[in-house]
């Protein structure tokens, strides 16, 4: 990960299948405080839509959703 300065929490759910990426982000979010950023990396193609849906359901903003070489990256901000 090429990442600068500001601390961004990390969550690696590569390899995990539905519904575990969502279960893991829900758990991880509980540890954060409002405004915190978290970057998730996943390989489940279904997670692209699922993270967008989870963001809408929970109000945690999805700032970025991208894919590089079969790895999906999501950046979320805790509400």
């Amino acid at each position, binding site marked *: 990960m090429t990442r600068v300065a500001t601390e961004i929490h990390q969550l690696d759910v590569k390899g995990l299948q539905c*519904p*575990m990426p969502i279960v893991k982000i829900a758990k991880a979010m509980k540890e954060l405080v409002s405004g915190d950023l978290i970057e998730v990396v996943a390989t489940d193609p279904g997670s692209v839509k699922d993270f967008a849906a989870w963001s809408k359901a929970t109000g945690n903003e999805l700032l970025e959703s991208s894919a590089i070489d079969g790895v999906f990256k999501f950046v979320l901000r805790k509400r």
Partner: protein
Amino acid sequence: MLEVMERPAQQPVPAASEAKSTAHEKLVIFAWSGDLDRVWPTLILATTAAASGMATTVFFTFWGLFPLVREDRRITGKNMMQKMLAVMNRGGIDYLKLSKLQMFGAGSGMMKVLAKQHQVASPAELLASAIELGVKLIPCQMTMDLMGLTTADLIEGIEEPAGAMTAMLDAKDAVTLFI
């Protein structure tokens, strides 16, 4: 890629914190089957709902109750018929059978191997996650009496046994599924 999640205009996405109870924020699943291919999606949906902040309840009734039987309770029941039932219908989350292609255990065995290969969480892992996420798992009292099961036969982390009315009360204003 994300535009598919847009809802029609008449249903603006509420900020989850202010969402009123008119929006479905509850999920109640009536789990009546002990089949692997029903229990699995039941637990996937329950954990997902809980992870998205929905108050989630699963009411386990009839064959659906057996996945909640503890690992170390091989024979349950008080009388001969209930005990024979337990012999022929082994309880426990690790002993679920497929509704088709079971092939005397080969089917569910192969499914477990495939799940492991593809890192799909097992029913046992999902059940543990459900408990951790605060999903209310309610065993049906009537089924317990019928099948001769006691709370000591069931896993920890679940609710007190209750009747249909308790599940129905939770089901008010909830998304309900019968799996």
